[in-house]
């Protein structure tokens, strides 16, 4: 079984190497998609032992993840892919517990959840935003989760083939949930720890940017399918 960690990265030269080392202990290969970074992200990732793909134009996290997925499936013949972050918010040692349900063929998709037992230092505003996200997801995707926009996931080869991300920016997280429902994939949640630091909070989507995500999803649902 080939397990591949997929890491979309944009201007992450300071943290990418640690994230790769962290993930590599628990997967066979690490694929980094450098989304047209302006810094040394690609070089750092390559020297940390990852396979690096480069977007010549910045296309957003969703697009980068899809590029990594296609490469892992077609070229590396991956059996399991793990979505991992470049900024060190995730803990690589949790990868085995995420891929375990897939190995045992109990699920096609395993979603990390910050609210299943493990402690996090999530700021209050994010907690509220996440609750709203849960409600939004239940209404629009018809899928009930304890945590909706957690980027830590594991997908079986079959699930990764079925789920094609077309939303370029951050709304891809909702699109993945949508497709799980539409393609009738078996999913399960597993507790994960997400570490918030000042640095990562400044970069990852703020609670306000959730509105932008909602806009992208609505646009996709109501306009682009005409």
């Amino acid at each position, binding site marked *: 079984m080939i397990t591949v960690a997929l890491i979309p990265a944009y201007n992450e030269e300071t943290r990418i190497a640690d994230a790769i080392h962290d993930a590599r202990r628990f997967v066979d290969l690490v694929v980094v*998609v450098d989304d047209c970074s302006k810094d040394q992200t690609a070089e750092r990732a390559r020297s940390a032992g990852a*396979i*690096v*793909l*480069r*977007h*010549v*134009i910045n*296309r957003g996290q969703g*697009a980068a993840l*899809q*590029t990594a997925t*296609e*490469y892992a499936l*077609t*070229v590396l013949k991956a059996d399991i892919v793990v979505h991992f972050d470049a900024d060190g918010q995730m803990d690589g040692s949790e990868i085995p517990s995420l891929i375990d349900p897939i190995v045992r063929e109990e699920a096609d998709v395993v979603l990390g959840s910050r609210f299943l037992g493990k402690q996090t230092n999530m700021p209050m505003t994010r907690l509220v935003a996440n609750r709203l996200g849960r409600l939004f997801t239940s209404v629009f995707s018809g899928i009930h989760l304890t945590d909706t926009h957690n980027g830590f996931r594991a997908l079986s080869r079959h699930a990764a083939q079925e789920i094609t991300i*077309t939303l*370029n920016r951050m709304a891809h997280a909702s699109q993945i949930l949508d497709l799980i429902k539409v393609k009738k994939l078996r999913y399960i949640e597993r507790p994960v720890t997400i570490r918030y630091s000042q640095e990562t909070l400044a970069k990852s989507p703020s609670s306000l940017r959730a509105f932008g995500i909602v806009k992208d999803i609505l*646009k996709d649902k109501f*306009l*682009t399918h*005409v």
Partner: protein
Amino acid sequence: MMFQGILIAFALFAVTRTLKQYRKQKVSLHWFLLWNSLWITVIGVALWPRSADIIAKFVGVERGADLAVYLAVVILAYLVFRLFVRQEQTEKEITKLVRKIAIEEVEK
């Protein structure tokens, strides 16, 4: 009179522009005809303002000028929608291209 003059001048300008674009094959025949018939209608209405009133009465709108404004809003809304869909399509195509390049480059 002044307003009519400006309107006609602008419409003529639009017609010649479209013609030029069509000759360069930048717009399709379909769009060329549609676009020009719109501007020719504008010229017609500017020359004979009463004609707009007659059409307006026929479709149940009080004044010709009102009908023109309603039509303009509808046409603009439709064009914006078309542009929006096309823009979204272009974005997706760019992503596909960027992805193809990324995968091919690493394989080398």
